[in-house]
């Protein structure tokens, strides 16, 4: 199982870490082919397209001909990605050449000519009485997602609990929260990083956890991934009959509803699910800056923060490192103070993370300015952090009452060699060594005496 890394931003990383057999199986599904194509780096997309109808292999050299000098690193990244995903297979005879994965190739060709067909049609509007508008749907999706996040970071805050079992929730919280003995769990460093990511990255993190956990629940990872991707090709806002789903998928769809990926509705006879924007944007590669959310925070030089947001979650995030002064219906006003920052540092949040958060979420109007967060504020945050680091605590052992100066000096040299010597006082023949060198030191002293 792949190591869960918090920086993993999209399903590309996840798919790339699958085994070769799983990957080849995945490409049987045309949706996955398309989704994978979409998430490739721009140059890689172009390479796939130009190879689409070429059956043999193409020399690596002839592809490099097209690349300009300053695009070479991009070219390398693209080729590596393609090989990693087994879309390109490398052939090394005399010269390196690449050929397109045949399954992948045929699926894409078919897709271009015939178009894909979803396994289910949207339900006619006379059956579904009133469908939510796209705006309502988006609000619903974000609401669900924030509710989930709130529950994730502090279970008490959530207004309505989700269907996830507490064991499932624990899985999600793993790595995000740390629980010191008897205290209530607190956000860990990576937990804070998680909160700083944009929605789709967060979503992918959670889904990743969900998928990696699936085997424990006896669900095939590949099935799960292909269902998720299939979902991403549904039309947002249209209703689809739940009966078209398999039993396994029916179970999954409930979980997805909790995450805000779909909205479930119950009619007189049938029940249906409506995919939201969160679901349909799953396959968008996250390199798209256009999919990034608009920022909302304005930081002033007087350390005041204005956040144009209605979200409770945002308020919670800001509370992590600032003093919230008042909350208006669409505005949160806070101030960065020494105390609030010490609080944050205490929780393992670093100054750089805070500054990065403020910069990434800068309101569009301030985001255009350079710097988007006033310099004096950044500097002060860093200074306060370094204030805390003035004294460094190291566990140590203290030795004194050496029998002779020789023994003392030999002990000093020994500790110095192992770079464990912290302090020495040759007059009074006392020294302190790091805790980890203590055992060696003890052995050494025993040998001396």
């Amino acid at each position, binding site marked *: 199982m792949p190591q869960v890394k918090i920086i993993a931003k999209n399903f590309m990383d996840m798919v790339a870490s699958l085994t070769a057999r799983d990957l080849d199986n995945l490409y049987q599904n045309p949706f996955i082919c398309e989704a994978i194509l979409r998430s490739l780096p721009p140059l890689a997309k172009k390479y796939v397209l130009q190879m*689409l*109808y*070429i059956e043999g292999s193409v020399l690596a050299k002839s592809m490099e001909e097209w690349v300009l000098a300053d695009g070479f690193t991009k070219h390398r990244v693209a080729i590596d990605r393609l090989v990693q995903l087994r879309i390109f297979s490398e052939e090394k005879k005399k010269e390196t050449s690449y050929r397109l994965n045949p399954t992948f190739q045929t699926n894409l060709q078919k897709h271009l000519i015939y178009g894909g067909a979803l396994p289910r049609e949207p339900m006619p509007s006379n059956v579904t009485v009133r469908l939510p508008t796209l705006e309502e749907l988006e609000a619903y999706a974000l609401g669900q997602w924030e509710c989930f996040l709130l529950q994730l970071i502090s279970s008490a805050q959530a207004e309505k609990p989700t269907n996830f079992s507490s064991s499932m929730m624990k899985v999600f919280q793993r790595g995000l929260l740390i629980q010191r003995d008897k205290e209530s769990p607190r956000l860990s460093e990576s937990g804070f990083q998680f909160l700083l990511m944009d929605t789709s990255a967060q979503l992918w993190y959670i889904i990743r956890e969900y998928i990696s956990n699936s085997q424990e629940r006896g669900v095939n990872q590949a099935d799960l991934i292909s269902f998720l991707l299939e979902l991403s090709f549904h039309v947002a806002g249209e209703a689809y009959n739940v009966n078209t789903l398999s039993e396994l998928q029916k179970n999954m769809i409930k979980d997805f509803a909790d995450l805000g990926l779909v909205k479930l509705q119950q009619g007189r006879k049938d029940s249906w699910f409506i995919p939201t924007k969160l679901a349909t944007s799953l396959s968008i590669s996250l390199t798209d800056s256009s999919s990034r959310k608009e920022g909302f925070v304005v930081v002033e030089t007087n350390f005041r923060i204005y956040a144009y947001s209605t979200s409770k979650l945002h308020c919670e995030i800001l509370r992590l490192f600032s003093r919230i002064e008042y909350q208006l219906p669409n505005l949160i006003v806070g101030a960065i103070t020494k105390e609030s920052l010490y609080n944050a540092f205490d929780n393992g949040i670093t100054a750089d993370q805070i500054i990065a958060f403020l910069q990434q979420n800068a309101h569009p109007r301030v985001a255009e300015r350079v710097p988007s967060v006033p310099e004096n504020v950044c500097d002060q945050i860093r200074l306060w952090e370094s204030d805390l680091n003035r004294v460094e605590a190291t566990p140590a052992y203290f030795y004194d009452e050496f029998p002779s100066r020789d023994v003392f000096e030999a002990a000093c040299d020994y500790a110095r060699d192992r770079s464990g010597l912290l302090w020495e006082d040759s007059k009074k023949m006392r020294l302190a060594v790091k805790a980890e060198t203590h055992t060696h030191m003890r052995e050494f002293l025993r040998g001396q005496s």
Partner: protein
Amino acid sequence: MSSGHVTKRAKYKTSVKDPGTSGALRLNEQKLMFMPDNRNSSTKLAVEFKSIQGHKYTKEGSKKPPLINLSNAQGGSYIFEFDNYSDLHVCRDFVSKVLEKSKDTSSVASEKTVVTLPDEQLSAAEMQLRIKLLQEDCELQKLHQQFVGGNILTEAEFWAARKKLLDNDSSRKSNQRVGFKSAMISDIRPLTDGRTNKVTFSLTPEIILQIFAEKPAVHRAFLNLVPKKMTEMEFWTKYCRAEYLNRTKNVHTAAAEAAEDEELALFLKEDDILATEVRKKIRRVDPTLDMEADEGDDYMHLPDHGIFRDGSKELNESQHDIYRRTLLQDLNRHAAVVLEGRTVDVEMEDNTRAVAEALARSKQGKEGADGYENEERLDRVSRSTTLEDLQPPHSLPLAPLSIKDARDYFDSQQGNTLKTFRDPSGKMESLGSLSTQEAYGSMRDAISEMKSMGVSDPIINPEVALKVFNGLTHSISSIKYNHGKNPRESVLDRLPTVTKEKLLQHWTCIQELLKHFWSSYPITTPYLYAKVSRLKDAMSNIYRQLEEMKASLQSDLRHQVSLLVRPMQRALDAAIQHHDADLQKRSAKSSEEIPNGYV
């Protein structure tokens, strides 16, 4: 006296102190001659009046001897001392008459010289500018050397084609205009001669313009009253009277006199035009401007150093309020006028009336702009009332149109000549066989075929795809090979540096020559005729050089170079052909008509 010549006895002096040589001065309409008594003396003179620029003479009654001083254009002078004043007067009158005449003719003559001999006289500044331009631009210098140095073009011709270059610099210098003086009108003190009660104000056009600009009411009054109701003299006397009353702070007298004389009252009253303007201005103030913030800044109690009128002495009687103007009002108005700048040139307008009218015109122009200003203000208000912090930027990004590197032209020329080799004009095949209906019908058939069949599968044959891809890759690598690493490099860069530079130089030369060549048509003067034949020779010379260059190159380069050279040669061909045809026509004509048929 008006007879053709005058002869008087006089002494010729080279300077005033010089004792002089005595002899006879003879003046006629063309020249003056001096014959010394001593025939062997070298001071014989024969000077044409054309070269004489001015004359000076001593006044009768002064203690000096009767002298006349004729100065020539080079700054030298001829001084003659006469025996008596009557001789001097006779000569003086004659000289002045002749000079007047010759001035007229000489100006005509000088115009003529410009036409026939365009070697203009240059001021030192112009010369320097040219030198500077040549120094800054080595390409220009090369051209200058080649053509002006090689006697193909004259200096004047060369620069005539580059007027813009010359203009640019000189216009920058002359563009600065003199504004109003910052001294206030009230600083112009009247002159009083201690003995009588007479007070003299001296008004120059400059001052009058300033008065008009600062006091619109006076300006209006002038336009209304002069010359219908009073003369200009009367007008200004009245004005000065009013000013005097104001100055002496004699409020009571002012009120009394105003009651009697309505015109005088005009000057003493508060300026109503100014008042309305000020009110307008206040309305124009940006509403977001915080005036209260300035309230604490108090300028009232600052001592007014150096300002002529002493504000503290001003009386404070409310009933005559309208007859008083405060220092502050005057200062503000003056400042506004000075900052507005001068809109009328005083030098041009000697006449007061004209000044007044010009000012009125320029004001009207400004009025028109006011409407626009108002709109702008509204726009500003609407912008500033919304929180500008949270608004997106207003305008879309636009790329400036810019001139490309002209060297791309070589690429295109090579491409074009290649093309003419390759496809000998494949015109679209005749369409006549099909009617419009059939054509549209077949299109619709194709579409409905697509509709029923869908996109053909496979779209293309894998072999074709590979072939196309390889073909493209090949052409890409040939571009890379041809252009080196840098895709921006042009055909030229493939040639050896020497050839490239030579080619470029020839190209600029040809440009220059052709420019001059075509601009001298139609040939109307013998001068142009000579110029064209000079140019033609130079062109055939370059033509030959091009040929030589081609021949001297290795075969592989020769082909490329000849592709580049071809358009140049074609341009030269066209010019030479035109020249020959024109020559033929001219000779045919001249044999019929008068020989030497230029006008």
